[in-house]
Every structure is written in structure tokens, then in C-alpha cells.
């Protein structure tokens, strides 16, 4: 296990370097000048020239990249061109928000996706199975921003059950945080649940067809025990991997959902940063997301070994 972790960390270094280099190059290839945007409506040429100088924009791109890299290695991610705030401060401000939303959404996805997937497999070809398929299909095809707005209109404006938007930390005011999380987590989780449901169903079907399940049934065990104790454990292996990877993706932020529910997470930060050509913020957030994704991949591998003992010596 230690070797696996060490090997992964070693591989992560060139990966992160390449990711940074790619993002840096792609950003500079984008048309548009950040200082034209930052200099405001007046666009005073003198101000633009001074800003370019302050941010060393006239240096060659390669020099700029290594200057940035050098700073990052010393823990300095630079400052946002748009608001002047340190990028690291922004990342630390948004990371808990994104983690909170991602965790809640995954919980919703698991809570809906896995049980429905199990039911659909167990009652394959029945009304339950077809309803679950229809549910999954709608979950996958309804766009998040539309579903979000509809939920706000119904639950917040019409019924006035939940607040329409905003964010509160779970550690500051747990009740307020939960109220504000329910709608966005449900919208995001709903789409992922469909995904999980389909995978759970197919994994379960495969396991339910296997010999040891037939043996368990032949021993006279009741169906509940067969499904929950014998089949589910084996079927869970790919599901766990999938869930951790989905969580990794959520760390990159859920732009549309964050926009609709005005949640100040990574998604909104990065989109705003791209539109404003706020180079430092884009670099910092992408690097941070890449690290998050690598960590989630590592966790997936470790969980895989925990659930499937046969892989432990491999």
C-alpha cells in the first residue's frame, strides 16, 4: 500500500507540471487582453501600460511561466488581477464551499442511485425496473440549470420551504447550511444518481447471475440476504471507484448549478476568471483541482484494494 501511494505521488509531479504548462499555454493563446478589461470603461492607455509592467506581462511567456512556477513552489500563487486578492486566499475560501457541495451531492447521488439500482436489478423487467430506467433517463437528460430554476420557483418562491440561493458553512450554522444545500445538492446529485443507478444495476445483474449467488439461493437463503449480504458486496467494487471519480469531478466545480444557486465555489470562480482573463486565478484553481482529482484517484485505488482483498498482494 505504501509503495502504491509513493508511486502515485511520484507520478503526480510530472502530471501537475504538464497540467500547469498546458493551462498556462492555453490561456495565453486565448484572444483578448486582461488589462483592457481591468482598465475599466475608460481604458486609459497609460494605465494599461503601467498594469502590464506591474504584472510583467511584457516578459516572454516562458519567463512568465517559470516565474509563476517558482513563486508557487514557495507557496505564493500570486494575486487576482480582478480583485487584487491573493489567489491562495481565494482558493482556501472556495475549497470548503466546493467540498461541502460535492459531499452533499455525492450523498444524494449514493442515497438515490444505489438503492434504486439494486431494486431495478432485483426486479429486472418489472414495473420497478422500467420506472427506475425512466427516472435515470430523465435525471441524465434534464439540464441542471433548468431543473434548478424550476425547483427554486416551486420550493422557494411558491411554497417558501427553502431559501432560493446562497451558501452557509456547515461549521458556522449547520441548520442554515443544510437548508441552503438541499436544492443544489439535489439538482447535482440527481444527475449523478442516474449514472450510479445504471452502473449499480448492471453490476448487480452480473453478480446475481454468478455461480456463488446460485449456490447461496440453493442453500435456501431468503432473497433479501442473497441480495444484500452476498451480491451487493461484490457489486460495490466498481461502484465505489465510480463514486470517488465522480466526487473528483465535482471538485472542479459545478458551474451551472453554482451559478443558479449563487454558491461561491470553484466553478463560478474559474468561469469568471476565464472571462476576465484573470490568469493567476485560473492557474491556481486548475492546479488545485488537478491535485484534488489525483487524490481522489488514489483513494479509489486504495478503496478498491480494501474491498477486494485479492488485489492486496498485487
Amino acid at each position: 500500500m505504501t509503495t502504491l501511494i509513493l508511486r502515485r505521488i511520484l507520478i503526480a509531479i510530472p502530471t501537475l507540471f504538464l497540467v500547469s504548462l498546458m493551462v498556462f499555454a492555453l490561456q495565453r493563446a486565448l484572444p483578448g487582453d486582461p488589462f483592457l478589461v481591468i482598465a475599466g470603461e475608460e481604458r486609459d492607455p497609460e494605465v494599461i501600460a503601467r498594469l502590464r509592467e506591474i504584472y510583467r506581462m511584457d516578459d516572454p511567456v516562458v519567463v512568465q511561466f517559470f516565474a509563476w512556477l517558482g513563486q508557487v513552489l514557495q507557496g505564493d500563487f500570486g494575486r487576482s488581477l480582478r480583485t487584487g486578492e491573493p489567489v491562495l486566499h481565494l482558493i482556501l475560501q472556495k475549497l470548503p464551499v466546493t467540498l461541502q457541495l460535492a459531499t452533499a451531492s455525492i450523498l444524494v447521488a449514493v442515497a438515490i442511485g444505489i438503492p434504486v439500482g439494486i431494486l431495478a436489478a432485483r426486479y429486472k423487467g418489472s414495473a420497478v425496473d422500467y420506472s427506475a430506467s425512466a427516472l435515470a433517463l430523465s435525471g441524465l437528460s434534464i439540464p441542471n440549470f433548468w431543473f434548478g430554476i424550476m425547483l427554486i420557483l416551486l420550493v422557494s418562491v411558491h411554497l417558501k420551504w427553502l431559501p432560493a440561493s446562497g451558501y452557509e458553512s456547515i461549521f458556522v450554522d449547520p441548520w442554515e447550511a443544510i437548508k441552503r444545500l438541499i436544492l443544489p445538492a439535489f439538482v447535482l446529485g440527481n444527475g449523478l444518481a442516474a449514472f450510479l443507478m445504471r452502473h449499480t444495476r448492471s453490476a448487480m445483474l452480473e453478480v446475481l447471475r454468478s455461480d456463488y449467488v446460485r449456490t447461496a439461493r440453493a442453500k435456501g437463503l431468503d432473497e433479501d440476504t442473497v441480495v444484500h449480504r452476498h451480491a451487493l458486496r461484490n457489486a460495490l467494487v466498481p461502484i465505489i471507484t465510480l463514486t470517488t471519480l465522480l466526487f473528483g469531478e465535482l471538485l472542479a466545480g459545478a458551474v451551472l448549478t453554482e451559478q443558479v444557486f449563487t454558491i461561491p465555489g470553484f466553478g463560478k470562480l474559474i468561469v469568471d476568471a476565464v472571462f476576465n482573463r484573470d490568469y493567476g486565478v485560473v492557474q491556481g484553481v486548475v492546479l488545485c483541482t488537478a491535485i484534488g482529482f489525483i487524490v481522489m484517484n488514489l483513494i479509489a485505488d486504495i478503496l478498491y484494494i480494501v474491498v477486494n482483498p485479492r488485489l492486496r498482494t498485487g
Partner: protein
Amino acid sequence: MKLARIWVSAAALALATLHFGAAKAQTPSTLRIGLQEDPDMLDPHKARTFVGRIVFMGLCDKLLDITAELKPVPRLATGWSFSPDGLTLTMKLRSDARFHDGEPFNAEAAKANLDRARTLPDSLRKSELASVDSVEAPDAATLVLKLKRPDATLISQLTDRAGMMLSPKTLSGDVGAKPVCSGPYKFVERVQNDRIVLEKFKEHWEADKYGFDRVIYRAIPDTTVRLANLRSGELDMLERLAPTDVKSAQGDKALKVLSMPNLGYQGITINTNNGEAANQPMGKDKRVRQAFSLSIDRKVLSQVVFEGLYAPMNQPFNPGNAFVDSAFPVPERDVVKAKALLKEAGQPKVSVELFVTNNPVDTQVGQVVQAMAQEAGIDVQLRSTEFASQLRDQQQGKFQMSRIGWSGRTDPDGNIHPFVTSKGNQNDGKYANPQVDKLLDEARTIYDPAERKKRYDAAQAILQDELPIVYLYNQTVFFALRSNIDGFVINPDGLIRLAGLKRK
């Protein structure tokens, strides 16, 4: 099935609990305002966004303010006068104002601020204060600005960010992270892309006029979502209600809608002289531009895209502005005349590219213009891109026509001089006419409004003929408020003044 039953009951239980818990207790003394964007730096000398100015209205007092009729009124300065030669502005200052850190406001502090705004390398206020040669503070209550040339726009600059005052002790620090001003509310916290929280400054010289203990500004870019938040009671008021939502908001008894023409304009800038792209009939022949302007029905454009709520315009000054020249009413659409002009120019068929920003509204404006111009024989090709690229290409002259607007300034100079004088910062089409330069340069230095108007009228007579910019419509400012919020005074600058606001 047992499992399914457990889930269903758990969900029902959760919803039932929520139903009782969710009726949000409103804090009577907090005002929550929905903004269309997240402001940029909260440093008045470096800030550039419109929404930033809305926040500054609560946070930072300025030397002067402006009324809805665009008249300057006292704030930190109680009186002001120009010397007979127009080269010295003397201001009398309040003696009872304090900064949020307890420091007193006086002429020294004002001088430190104006000097910072004029000299900070990345200050965006430099061009606004370009006419100021030096600032003096002969005594605590007197501020003297020595000018390089008479400047009729200076007073209006001091009613905005250039006239905002920060505590002198904080000037060298990280102002944007924690601005310390002298306004009626002080800075508490900011979460980027989410909220800015201000708290009442009890020692403010006018504290009794401010009814709320806290003000929270929340950035909610989606107009539908912003309105939904107002309807659900999450917000008390919002700025920039979308025209398409005005009718439904007006029909909602829990809300009220206020509106007024804003100070800016929306139009199409034509490349008449900036590089290769200007070498085509639209750029080179004023008759083609006249034909293009005549082919557009501005009323129909407003009806199709903005529910008829935006006023058509053909001048750089907003409808109702004292500087509008009545000799040039908004022209009626005239396709026959447009065709005749094209024929006279020897260009019965013209093909031209129009740059639009890639948002739904701007694209729609482009499409309506395209359809109308087509009937006169002008084939408009739309090129859509995001704003940063549009600005860049426009400045570099890589455009034939560009759909662009201006948020407007209280002084007429700000709406015209930078756009059509040959050295103007915003003259992206590089339009150049020495006569226009002379008239508009002169207008800047004349303090008498009637004399100034003569220069603007004379310049307009030329510009209406040569049409380097085809003005289309004015964006009405729409505010929506919960009906229990009283005392809001709407101003064409679109800013939110917090004095007098209260909840019934």
C-alpha cells in the same frame, strides 16, 4: 421493497421538518441587495465596475453627490467655488466627519486621497483628475485644487470615485482587502462571487438617516434567479431587473418596480479610420452610414428585444438630458431614402460585418439590425465573440462595425469626448475631425452650461451627418423592491443611495 419504504418515509420526514423550520426569520435591520455582478477591487482609486460603485455608495463618502436632476450637492464638501480665471477650485469641508478607524476627516486627509488617486501607478482615476496640477490644504476645513486648465467636468468627477475618501493611515496598505472609508456603513467581510457585508457606522455625521444596521450585497448574475430570490424574500431589492421580467414583477403585489432612463447609450461604433478594416463603403462613405442608420426602426428594435421598455435614441446623451439637441429628433425608419442614399453613393449593395458580444440579448439586437438593414440593401454579417476579445479586436481596428454601449457619466463630456475626438481613449474607429476636436475640447473648459451646450450642439450637427457612431437605444434603469421597503430614491446613475431606506 422494505428498503424503498424506509427511503420514502425518511424523505417525507425530512421535508416535513423543513416545512416548519424553513420560514426564514427576517432580521428587521438587515437590507439585502441583489447585484448583477460581483464587484472588482473595493479600492475607489483602482475600481472599475459599475456594481462596485453601488457598494461604495454605502461604504465611502465622497466630496460631493449628485441629485436625480444631475445637480451636485454637498457631502464631505459643504461648499465650493471656482476662481474667476477658472484655474482654482476652493472647497469648504465638513468638520464633523470621521473615518471608520476613528481618524478625523480634514483637508489633509482629502489632499492625501486626491494625491493618491492622481499618482498611484495603477490608479484608474488619473484621467478623471488629469486637469489637477496640485492640491493644497491651507487649513483643516479648506481644500484648494490648482488646475492646469479650466475643467468643467471636475465637479462631476468629484461626485464619484475620484472624490471618495479613504482613511489616510490605510492608504499605503492593502486597501481593496479591507477598505476604511468614512461612509455611513463600514466594511465587515467579503466572500468573492457571493456577498459583501457592511455594518452601520454609528459615528457617521448623518447616521440618523440610515435605517438599517447591516447591508448585504449579493452577486446573483442570472436575472431570473435574482428575481426569484426577491420573490422568495431572500432579497429586499435588486438592481437591473430584466425588461422581460418587468411586467411579471409589476403584477406581483409583494413587489414594486421603479424605473428611469440611465445616463448611457447603446449603439454601433463604425470603423471609419482604424486600419485596413475601415477601407470599405461603410467606413469610407458617410452616405452609406446614413443609409444604415435610416434603415433601422429603433422603436421596433426596442419592442422586439426589450418589450418596448428601452427608449430609442440617436444622440450620446440620455433622453431628457439637458444637453440633448432638439434639432435632431430620433429619425423615423426610411427605407426608400436609405436606398436612394446607397444609390447616390454608387453602392446599391453593401456587405458589412457587425461585431456583437456573445450573449443572448446582444445577439438578438444584432439579428434585428441585420434584418432591417437587409431591406435597404445592406447585408450585415454578424460576428459573435465574448467581450474581452471584442474589446481587443475593436481597439486594434479589427472590426467594421461593433455593437457596444456606454454606462454614461453625469457630465456630458464623458459621453462624447473620449469617443469621437481624434485622440480619445475610446475612439476605436479612429474617427477624426479637427472641427469636432476643437468644439469638444472647448466645451470641457467652459463653466457656463448654456455656452457649453452651444459647443455640443455644433459638434452634434457634424456628428449627426458623419455618423461615426449610430446610437440606438437607452437602457432604462429598473429596480425591483419588496413592497415593504420604503424611501428609495431612484437616480439616473443607477446607484443605490441608502439614506432614507427603511422597512415598513
